[in-house]
Structure formats: C-alpha cells, structure tokens
C-alpha cells in the first residue's frame, strides 16, 4: 500500500506540474506508472507469501529434526475451506493448465515450474517444446532407465516419487493410521466399508482404542454436528482388529514430483472403488488442521491379492491435482461436477473381470496418474 501511495502521489505531482493542457499528459503518465506498479505489487505480494511459506516449511523441518511431532490443531482458516467450492476451483485450474502454449513459450514456462517446485527436467522423456500445456507436462513420462526397479524378489517397491509421511504395522483395534499426532483415521474408512481388509473380531475394543490418542471415535462423541455432516463411512470405529502382518505406508507427492503411479509388486487387482469426496489441499498445514483429510477427499482405491495376501492402493486427489486417471480403466472419470450438496454418497465400485482373477499387474507397471484439475 505504501508503494501504491507513492505511485499515486508521484502521479498527482506530475499532474500538478503539467498544469492546464499538460495536465492530461501528466495523468496519462500516472496511468502508465500504475500498471507496472500493480504488477510489481502483485509480484512482491506473491514473493512475500512464498517467502512466508518457505519460512513455515523450514520451521516445520527444524521441529521435525528436533523430534517434535506435528500436532493436530483445527483452525478457522481450515473451517473456511469447507465452504469454498474447491471442486469448481480445481476444475477451473484444470481448464487453465490445459491451455496450449506457443512453442517458443513452452521451455520458459516449464523451466519456471521446475525452478519453483524442484523438478528434474533432464528426466523428461520428451523435449520441453513437445508438451503442449502445463497439464500435459505435469504427467510427463520419464526417460528409459530413470527409475530402475529394485530387482530383489523379496521387496516391495515404492509406487510413486514422494516423501514418506507415515508407515508401520496396523495393530490397534479399528486399524487406525495417524494423520498427525492427536488425530487418526481408520483404514476401513479410507478403503471402503466393503473392503477385504483382513480383520479379526476384537472384544476389548473400548479398552484398546481408548488412551492418549484422540481417535475418530472420540471425536464423533464430542461433536454431534460434525457427525451429522460427515459421511456415514467415517462415523463408526470398526469393532475388529487387523490380522498380524498388515502394514501401511503413506507417501506424499509434491507438485514438482513425477506424478505417475506404478505397481508396487506383482498382484491381481480385483476391485476398484471411486469415492467422490471433497478436494481439500493435502499439504502439511491441511494435515494438521483438517480432520479426516484422506477419508474426506476424492480418491480411487484398488484392492486385490498378491503372493503374501491382501494389497490395496489408494490414490488421493487434492485441489490442484484433483483427477486420477487409471490406465487399467481408461473410462473412469474423476473430479466430475458435483450435483448433490452432501458428501455422503457410497463409493462407486467396479469388480474387474474375470471374476476371481481380476487384472494382473507386474511390479513397476504403470497403473495411473494424477492430473491437474
């Protein structure tokens, strides 16, 4: 605002100095200052926001290095997000990023993107001029040999490029995964109530699920209005315990990462489930402030069997990367315009044929991709 006041006062001075017929000239000079001034102001504001974000990220990183866990802490800004038309915003973002650039502009745009989000452009399979739009560039394939697959037959590989957020064995009643310290969500809510998750009946659920962790069950008792607005799938805690040897891993993909999803092992995909939920952002701040983030967001779940038993992979969308494409089912469309107000529809499910065998995927095979918007 100081900058604009200066620009306005200099414009006014120019107008006074010009006087009479010269006043018109002075006014046009003021206008010509105003446009670059507004641009500079916008750039400065974006720069300040980016600097603040980097500072926050650094603080979080430092805290993590010191062993301080991020804690769940809902805030007003997060509540405000639920009133925004995030799906419409996401779809509009998709439309914007689908706009084709002239060939001479493409390397500049993609280089700027790579600098901002730390992408390695040397890995891109095609020359930058061949990516017609940012959306096309975002789901780029990689050069042959950029991602060697671990050849150990007794290993499970990462299906994506990303940052490991959580991993471990599911032992607790209800099979809960911690979102951040102080809040957990249940795996059956994430994968669907009809999932084949190997569980065993548990009689001591009250004793086992209680304690220091504010799990979903506790929250639902405390907050009736949240229960009434939440979809049915997130209300109840499962009265069962996971079988021994059930593990999980949560991997977060930053905007600069390679955004294709691959198969982690050789497995048979039997069922696909599409949850048409919300499209909250999935960044660190959102994780700390939005309840049931992964359970509420739009996602596609693939479920099947591998040599060691059960296998499920959930690809969860966000505001900027809202649509999930499955190469094994090209007809699936996600991030569709929403007709109903409440987010309580059951997931749309498809059993892959032939029944009992499903679709065979090899370790490292491309399964799908996250698209912009």
């Amino acid at each position, binding site marked *: 605002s100081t900058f604009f006041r200066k620009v306005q006062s200099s414009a006014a001075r120019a107008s006074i100095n010009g006087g009479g017929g010269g006043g018109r000239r002075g006014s046009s000079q003021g206008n010509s200052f105003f446009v670059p001034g507004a641009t500079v102001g916008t750039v400065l504001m974006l720069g300040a926001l980016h600097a603040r974000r980097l500072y926050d990220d650094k603080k979080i990183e430092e805290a*993590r290095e010191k062993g301080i866990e991020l804690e769940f802490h809902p805030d007003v800004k997060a509540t405000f997000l639920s009133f925004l038309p995030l799906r419409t915003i996401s779809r509009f973002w998709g439309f914007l990023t689908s706009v084709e650039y002239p060939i001479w502009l493409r390397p500049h745009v993609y280089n700027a993107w790579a600098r901002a989000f730390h992408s390695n452009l040397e890995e891109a399979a095609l020359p930058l001029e061949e990516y017609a739009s940012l959306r096309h560039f975002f789901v780029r394939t990689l050069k042959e040999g950029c*991602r060697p*697959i*671990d050849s*150990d*037959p*007794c*290993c*499970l*590989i*990462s*299906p*994506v*490029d*990303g*940052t*490991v*957020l*959580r*991993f471990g064995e*599911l032992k607790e009643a209800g099979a809960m*995964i911690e979102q951040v310290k102080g809040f957990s969500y249940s*795996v059956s809510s*994430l*994968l669907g109530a009809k999932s084949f*998750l190997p569980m065993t009946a548990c009689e001591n659920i009250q004793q086992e699920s209680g304690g220091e962790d504010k799990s979903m069950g506790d929250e639902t008792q405390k907050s009736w209005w949240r229960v009434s607005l939440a979809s049915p799938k997130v209300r109840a805690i499962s009265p069962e315990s996971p*079988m*021994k*040897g*059930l*593990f*999980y*891993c*949560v*991997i*977060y*993909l930053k905007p600069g990462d*390679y*955004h*294709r*999803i*691959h198969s*982690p*092992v050789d497995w048979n995909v039997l069922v696909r489930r599409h949850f048409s939920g919300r499209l909250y952002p*999935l960044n660190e701040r959102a994780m700390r402030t939005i309840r049931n983030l*992964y359970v509420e967001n739009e996602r596609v779940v693939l479920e099947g069997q*591998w040599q*060691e*038993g*059960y*296998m*499920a*992979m*959930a*690809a*969860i969308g*966000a505001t900027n*990367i809202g649509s999930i494409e499955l190469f094994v089912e090209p007809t699936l469309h996600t991030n569709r315009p929403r007709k109903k107000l409440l987010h309580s529809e059951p997931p749309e499910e498809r059993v892959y044929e032939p029944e009992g065998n499903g679709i065979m995927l090899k370790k*490292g095979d491309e399964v799908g991709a*996250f698209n912009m918007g």
Partner: protein
Amino acid sequence: STVVLVFQAPVSSANERMPSDFKFCIERGDRIRMGEALGRWHD
C-alpha cells in the same frame, strides 16, 4: 496428492528359527523414488 498402500507381508511365527519378518527400509520424511524398495523380507 497422496498414495496410501495397505498390504499384508510375511511375519514369522514365534517358533521359527530364521525370522522372515517384513521390514521397512525407509524413514519418515525420506524422499523416495518410484522403483526403490519400501521394505524387504527374507525368503
């Protein structure tokens, strides 16, 4: 965007002489690339 994997993996029973437990070979906050091992077990 985020990917969550849920899977069964080998765990050895108490009376096995050679443990064949699945072990993650990653740490929280690690950057991982597609194709790198998340965890291993012994045959």
